[in-house]
């Protein structure tokens, strides 16, 4: 026998079984080797496997098992001792590793299982979050709908559009079957169906407002689920359908008066409208919380939008009213202006047209009086004269009074001879008094100056009126006129306690008393005397034919002269005294006293030269300036020439009586110069008269000139005669009445 170190296999060499075992072992080995490879491959791929070293261990275990099985392959046949040793080693190692692995797995498997639990937990959490996000999204959708709805509702200010749009949009957003709005009627006891979404024009549906369901809805500002069978929800015959859920919400109707200045509308607003929303019938839809919220928000917005619409309506109405009033006022104003214009035109016409014939009649009758007449003729002529004088006076009175009334009358202030005025008055009444065989006396105090400054014509009028009245109402005896300068102690008269005249250096107060021995006046009637058109019955005599305007006009003139007028009488039959005090200017240091301004000269007598009259001429054109200067020199004036506005203002002084200004000077505007001259001379009497010279004196130019305070406009070219009459008129009247 060979002594080999061979080991005898345990099993008999049964060929088939051996073969199967052999193959199986081979495959096992293969598998055992490939499993770790796969493991390694996949673990390398994955990033999160936490137990790598376990893998190593496992891998070792498997590899060794594989090795064992592989080595087993050799043991099927005769094999050497080495193989047996290797086999044994492998098996031992395998045993060790397997046991280690088994021990290890005890620790590891619970861990792995818990990982799984955590995974499950996280999955659940994720699902929950998804759900919540779904909800949030829905809410956002809702919010978007609300915003859109609100925008739609608020984009119009028309009440109907607002309500209609609300219903339409709500219907669309919430996919409603029906949406209706019930508004309170005027009486407030019923709700009337006003708007619906799908029903055609709703007419006549009303429900009483005191239904419990309605109360329930009105008592809270939340949307309330109501029964589909309640009268507000039963809009259509429901028939076979299962009606959908119905929700109702109140819509406060705010009124303008609810908005106090500092408050917001309180919940005491009593008027609500009812909005009813119905879900589609057959669907199993329910009202969700967010949908209810949406409905509430919309209801509020609608309330606000409606109140805006109401306010707008109010303000539009107020504006229309104002516009109508404006139109009416404008019309009234224009009518008034037309009336004033008509009156002014009338006055202007009367002024000229009526006075001219009057004067002719008066003048010619007086001339006739001078001729040889028989007594009857004389009487007739006297009557004519008297009547025409009366008529003339009447005309003048009416004209003056209307000018006085609207304040457009201005006194023509000029210097005049006071003494001769009184004498003239006396001369005028002398004929009448001698006819009536009355005496007339005049006594002037010695301290009355010879010249005074005031409106001579009007003063004459006052005097004539007062004196005329005195003569009129005196049948026997006579009248006496006294005049003196009022001193401070006599200034205050018990009759006129409010009158505090204060004389000064440039003014004095003239007191005139006209005493008559006539029929007197009842002291109670005295206040009435000065009112227009009022005539006391007791004063009516056969001579009185006055319109009753005389004293009223006198009073106004006296007031314009900053004075007072009153009557005193001791009673009927005891005569009467008329007293008036007026403020007159004293012609002072200025050169006025030297000038022969005897304006008693009638208007058609024109001075031929004006010696010593200082004038200022402003013209920038050398030739034109020279010509005008020559013209003025020819008329005897002393001329100072300037060529520009600045120079003019520098040179002008109160010695210059007239300043002629050519309109077309460049630089400083002529109007500005005029204004500056006014500013420079505050007292009217000091200021030189300003006359504009222009080549085209149209109406606009004249108005502009007069507006800045110029005293006249003269059209160029100026002839010698024209300049002469201009200067005359200026010196007589202080103003150019017509632009020449």
């Amino acid at each position, binding site marked *: 026998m060979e002594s080999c170190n061979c080991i005898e296999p345990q099993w008999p060499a049964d060929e088939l079984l051996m073969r199967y075992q052999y193959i199986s072992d081979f495959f096992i080995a293969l598998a055992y080797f490939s499993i770790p490879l796969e493991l390694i491959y996949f673990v390398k791929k994955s990033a999160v496997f936490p137990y790598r070293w376990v893998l190593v261990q496992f891998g070792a275990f498997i590899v060794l098992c594989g090795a064992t099985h592989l080595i087993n392959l050799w043991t099927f046949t005769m094999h050497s001792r080495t193989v047996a040793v290797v086999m044994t080693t492998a098996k031992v190692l395998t045993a060790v590793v397997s046991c280690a692995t088994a021990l290890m797995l005890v620790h590891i498997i619970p861990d792995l299982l818990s990982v799984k639990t955590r995974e499950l937990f996280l999955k659940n959490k994720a699902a929950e979050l998804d759900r919540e996000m779904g909800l949030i999204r829905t809410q956002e959708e809702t919010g978007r709908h609300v915003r859109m709805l609100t925008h739609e509702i608020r984009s119009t200010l028309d009440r109907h559009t607002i309500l209609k749009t609300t219903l339409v949009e709500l219907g669309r957003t919430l996919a409603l079957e029906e949406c209706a709005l019930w508004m309170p009627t005027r009486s407030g006891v019923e709700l009337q169906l006003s708007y619906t979404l799908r029903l055609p024009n709703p007419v006549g549906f009303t429900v009483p407002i005191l239904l419990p369901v309605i109360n329930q809805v009105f008592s809270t500002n939340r949307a309330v689920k109501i029964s589909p069978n309640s009268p507000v929800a039963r809009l259509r015959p429901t028939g076979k359908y299962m009606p959908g859920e119905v929700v109702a919400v109140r819509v406060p109707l705010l009124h303008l008066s609810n908005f106090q200045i500092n408050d917001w509308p309180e919940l005491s607003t009593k008027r609500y409208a009812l909005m009813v929303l119905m879900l589609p019938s057959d669907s199993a839809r329910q009202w969700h919380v967010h949908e209810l919220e949406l409905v509430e928000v919309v209801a509020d917005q609608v309330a606000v939008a409606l109140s805006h619409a109401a306010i707008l309506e109010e303000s539009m109405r107020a504006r229309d009213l104002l516009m109508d009033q404006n139109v009416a006022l404008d019309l009234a104003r224009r009518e008034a202006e037309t009336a004033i214009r008509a009156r002014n035109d009338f006055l202007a016409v009367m002024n000229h047209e009526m006075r001219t014939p009057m004067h002719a009649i008066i003048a010619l009758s007086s001339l006739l009086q001078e001729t040889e007449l028989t007594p009857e003729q004389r009487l007739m002529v006297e009557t004519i004269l008297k009547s025409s004088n009366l008529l003339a006076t009447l005309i003048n009175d009416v004209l003056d009074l209307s000018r006085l009334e609207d304040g457009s009358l201005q006194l023509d202030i000029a210097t005049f001879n006071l003494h001769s005025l009184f004498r003239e008055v006396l001369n005028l009444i002398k004929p009448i008094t001698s006819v009536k065989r009355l005496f007339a006396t005049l006594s002037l105090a010695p301290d009355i100056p010879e010249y005074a400054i005031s409106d001579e014509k009007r003063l004459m009028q006052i005097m004539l009126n007062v004196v005329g009245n005195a003569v009129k109402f005196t049948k026997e005896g006579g009248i006496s006129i006294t005049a003196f300068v009022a001193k401070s102690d006599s200034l205050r008269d018990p009759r006129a306690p409010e009158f505090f005249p204060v004389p000064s250096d440039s003014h004095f107060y003239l007191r005139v008393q006209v005493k008559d021995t006539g029929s007197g006046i009842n002291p109670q009637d005295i206040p009435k005397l000065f009112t227009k058109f009022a005539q006391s019955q007791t004063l009516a005599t056969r001579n009185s034919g006055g319109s009753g305007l005389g004293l009223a006009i006198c009073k106004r003139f006296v007031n314009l002269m900053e004075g007072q007028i009153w009557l005193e009488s001791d009673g009927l039959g005891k005569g009467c005294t008329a007293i008036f005090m007026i403020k007159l200017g004293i012609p002072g240091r200025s050169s006025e006293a030297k000038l022969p301004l005897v304006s008693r000269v009638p208007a058609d007598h024109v001075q031929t030269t004006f010696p010593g009259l200082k004038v200022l001429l402003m013209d920038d054109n050398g030739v034109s300036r020279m010509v005008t200067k*020559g013209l003025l020199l*020819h008329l005897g004036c002393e001329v100072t020439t300037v060529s520009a506005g600045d120079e003019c203002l520098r040179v002008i002084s109160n010695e210059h009586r007239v300043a002629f200004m050519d309109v077309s000077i460049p630089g400083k505007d002529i109007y500005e110069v005029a204004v500056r001259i006014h500013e420079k001379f505050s007292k009217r009497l000091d200021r030189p008269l300003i006359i504009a010279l222009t080549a085209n004196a149209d109406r606009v130019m004249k108005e502009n000139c007069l507006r800045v305070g110029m005293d006249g406009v003269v059209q160029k070219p100026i002839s*010698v005669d024209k300049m002469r009459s201009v200067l005359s008129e200026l010196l007589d009247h202080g103003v150019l009445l017509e632009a020449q």
Partner: protein
Amino acid sequence: MEVGQLQRSFVEFTESLFREGFLDAQFCQLQQLQDENNPDFVIEVVSLFFEDSEKLLNDLTRALDQQDVDFKKVDACVHQLKGSSSSIGAERVKNACIAFRNFCDELNIDACLRCLQHVKQEYLLVKNKLETLFRLEQQILAAGGAIPMVE
């Protein structure tokens, strides 16, 4: 020449001036202003007019010669000239100025240049005529006669 003849030619000449529109009533006014206080009034005014007008016409020529015509200045000069000429009664010059101003308003350079020529022409004509008139006056005075009044 003897005085009567001189005076007659003076009257004829003056009348022709008025007839042909060189002078108007304003010139008569000027003559009325001449008195013993102011014996040379008319001549002085007319000389001033000549000086003034020459200056204005030069200014106008220069102004219209510029690249950028300053119409405001042109208008102002024409206005002055119009004023002067109407002050002494140079009617045709005045009318030419009025036409000039209208074209100025329209900012029409060519028309303005034409107008300027026209104005210059009229001015020279009236200057000529007035100088002749004054010469005649001097001759009459030198011959010992008096200047006849022309209505």
